[in-house]
């Protein structure tokens, strides 16, 4: 039986994952906005260490699926399975507790905060605990931030500088580092390279690869098929809310993929 949001169990932040085992699986997910069918019986799964590219034309349902997986939107039908437990819906906080993080297209960074502050925001290490007045352990926060940045081999020259000082690529790296610090199951990237130049794109793709190398499941929404083929292990294509391809990238040509996405086969 599918669990509701109130039945979500807390999962250890330090659970051991087996590369290749399924991190998240959704089955028969449908979502309607009034009479508009955004998702129709979508089923798919992502394994630990795997990079799945979610592709599709505008209005295909990519963003809605991301919102469902990240807990922003509850599906009207279907269930999501995590570690053998089924959920009919969960909140964003539940998703984060279960180790699911999203790196949004429009970066959700706080410009005036430092890179360190952005990375630990919401999970600040404490020197002394007094509830909301708890003193932040700044040394530990710097260590966490540096470790998260090192994990994706990003180059952030001064993690104590406000984020607004950094380039687009560096800001994207900070957003990824934040997700890496928080996630222990799945990181969803919403158009991570849309606003970046070529070198910054390459650096970002490299960072995403490192996230998967760490054993985390990765879902990437992308329009650029060249980038998709460069980074993804598997491709899931949506059209008009339905899955039209769920295939290992070596088994489908770009032309065929584009044809399935657009419907002009």
């Amino acid at each position, binding site marked *: 039986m599918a669990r509701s949001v109130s039945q979500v169990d807390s999962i250890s932040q330090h659970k051991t994952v087996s590369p290749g085992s399924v991190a998240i699986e959704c089955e028969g997910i449908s979502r309607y906005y009034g009479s508009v069918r955004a998702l129709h019986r979508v089923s798919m799964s992502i394994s630990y260490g795997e990079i799945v590219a979610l592709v599709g034309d505008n209005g295909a349902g990519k963003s809605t699926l991301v919102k469902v997986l990240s807990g922003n939107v509850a599906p009207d039908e279907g269930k999501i399975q995590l570690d053998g437990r089924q959920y009919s819906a969960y909140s*964003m*906080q539940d998703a*984060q507790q279960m180790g699911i993080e*999203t790196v*949004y297209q429009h*970066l*959700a*960074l*706080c*410009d*005036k*905060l430092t890179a360190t*502050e952005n990375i630990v*925001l*919401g999970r*600040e290490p*404490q020197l002394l605990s*007094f509830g*909301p*007045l*708890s*003193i*932040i352990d*700044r040394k530990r926060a710097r260590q966490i931030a540096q470790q998260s940045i090192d994990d994706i081999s990003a180059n952030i020259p001064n993690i104590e*500088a*406000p984020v*607004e*000082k950094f*380039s*687009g690529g560096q800001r994207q790296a900070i957003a990824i580092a*934040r997700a890496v610090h*928080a996630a222990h199951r799945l990181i969803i990237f919403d158009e991570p390279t849309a606003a970046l*130049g*070529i*070198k*910054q794109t*390459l650096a970002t793709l490299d960072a995403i690869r490192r996230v998967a190398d760490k054993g985390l499941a990765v879902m990437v929404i992308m329009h650029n098929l060249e980038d998709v083929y460069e980074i993804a292990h598997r491709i899931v294509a949506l059209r008009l809310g339905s899955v039209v391809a769920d295939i290992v990238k070596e088994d489908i040509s770009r032309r065929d993929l584009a044809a399935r996405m657009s419907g002009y086969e």
Partner: protein
Amino acid sequence: MNDTEKKKNLDSSKRSSSSYHFSETVVRNIILLTIIIVFSIYVQIQNDNFLTLNSIGVIGLNISFIGIAAIGTALLMIGGQIDLSIGSIFAFAAVISGLMASLIDPQLAIVVGVLSGGMIGLINGLIVWRISISPIIVTLGALTFVRGLVLIITDDKSVTGIPENFTILGRTVVLGLPLPVIIFLVIGVLAGLILSFTRVGLRIRAFGDNKAGAELSGLSGRNLTLGLFFFSGLVSGLAGVLATSRLGGASPNFGIGFELEVITAVVLGGVAITGGEGRITGVALSVVLLGVVKSGITALGLDPNIGRLIVGGALIGAVALNQLGVERHNRSRRKQAMAEFAADGGVADRLGLTKSANRDGD
């Protein structure tokens, strides 16, 4: 443009951006401090009674009421909110505490007066949060509503007959400093420490900077918003109670224009009107500056209404400077982006003409 020039451009724009951020807070505080010192010396030369211990004590006392309220408003504005009703909250707490002190119990009057300010702030916060209306509209309404309450409660008459023991709070002097000044300093220091070193301080700055981003980090803004409005109302109420205690009475016209002076001090002190940025040190310095200037005008024998011109002008000037700073920063960001674009291969890369070469190179 060759690679060296591209790199030079990139480094130069990064330095420019960096130096702007480094200097902004420090330069602002140095300017404020310099104006305070220079103006004080000028007034002292014109009137040798200006910088006496007694006169400094009076100035300190006058600024403490605005300063205490300014600390709450600063935190609220850094958190991305604003409360325009603090002048009426100040008056409400003043008359409520005065009435209670004269009719019931002086100690209880202090507690009720201060908490009444906090409750009005909390109600403002609840409306802003629950109905998602602009805090400017909500608190502008509250400004008039609460002032109406004050006038009705007092029948538009001053509150008098306050017992002596209620005035202890406002008239006590410790180590040469009036108690309201000490309270201002203590609240200011605590607020500064909270803002810089605690979890809630970081979250206040985060929400003021990017509310949506902070929420996507899993944070809930509800308690933070309510807490900030409550605290702002609480300290405005405290200022009102202290004023009644100091003066031994309260007028229903207390605090008219108070919010303007407080917000001027906060903005002049470097708190961004858009939220997310500001330090308590700058706010405290600008509170002192406005107090010194107003007292100086009196000491120079000038028309006291010039003080209004200065407060209004300072607010416009501070907002204008803030905006110019933002524009300058944006220009610097654009320049940096262009330099990065050029360093990244520019148009050729964007068009994919050098993409494969780049990828091969990597």
